């Protein structure tokens, strides 16, 4: 099966859990939702965390299909403000 290389970039609690970056080879047609399920799958609780995704500094929907070379930022729930 043809695969493409992408990179996940993590922030805050997720960065502490996975490190800042993670390279993955995934099948063509993979959505960010599926990608995250695979990454989070091994950690109970994590897969239920309502994460958001961003590509090229724009939020994308969970159904976004990754492209070769994408950097996919994975955000835990934001908590700015005091």
């Amino acid at each position, binding site marked *: 099966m043809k695969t493409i290389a992408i990179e996940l970039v993590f*922030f805050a609690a997720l960065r*502490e859990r996975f490190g800042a970056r993670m390279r993955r080879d995934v099948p063509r047609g993979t959505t960010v939702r599926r990608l995250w399920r695979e990454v989070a799958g091994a950690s109970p609780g994590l897969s239920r965390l309502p994460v958001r995704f961003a590509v090229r500094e724009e939020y994308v929907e969970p159904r976004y299909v990754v492209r070769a070379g994408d950097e996919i930022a994975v955000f*835990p*729930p*934001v*908590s*700015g403000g*005091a």
Partner: protein
Amino acid sequence: MFEINPRRLDVGRVLAAVRSPAAGAVVVFTGTTRRTNAGRRVERLEYEAHERMAVREMRRLGAHAKRRWRLERVAMMHRVGVVPVGEPSVVIAVSAAHRDEAFTAGRWLIDRLKEIVPIWKKERYRGGYVWIGAQQGGGVPQRRRRTQAKARG
């Protein structure tokens, strides 16, 4: 002015950024680190941001608010890094012809910032910390934090 800033926030500078001869009202919101949260003594806060995206999202919120409430000017500044108790983490200023629009827009801006701008807060206590919103802290018992995060001012 839309800024992520690692140093102590200068409220006067944010205020000055929204000055306008057409403005009859200026509203400033400052969000400040509290000594206690949910009964626990907070030593300090630490904030992390996706800086470029945070600035972009704040700018977008500002532009939207400006159109919706016919504001004169909007400025938003959020601090990152360590924030000691008592110092502001966020400052938002809005100027408008009349106070109703300024108050409403200011409230909307801080609410939206807390919902979508990619900034994360870590509360440090003696002997541990919690990433607010994520329930992924180290060293501190996991608790239901998301509802608390929403309830705070």
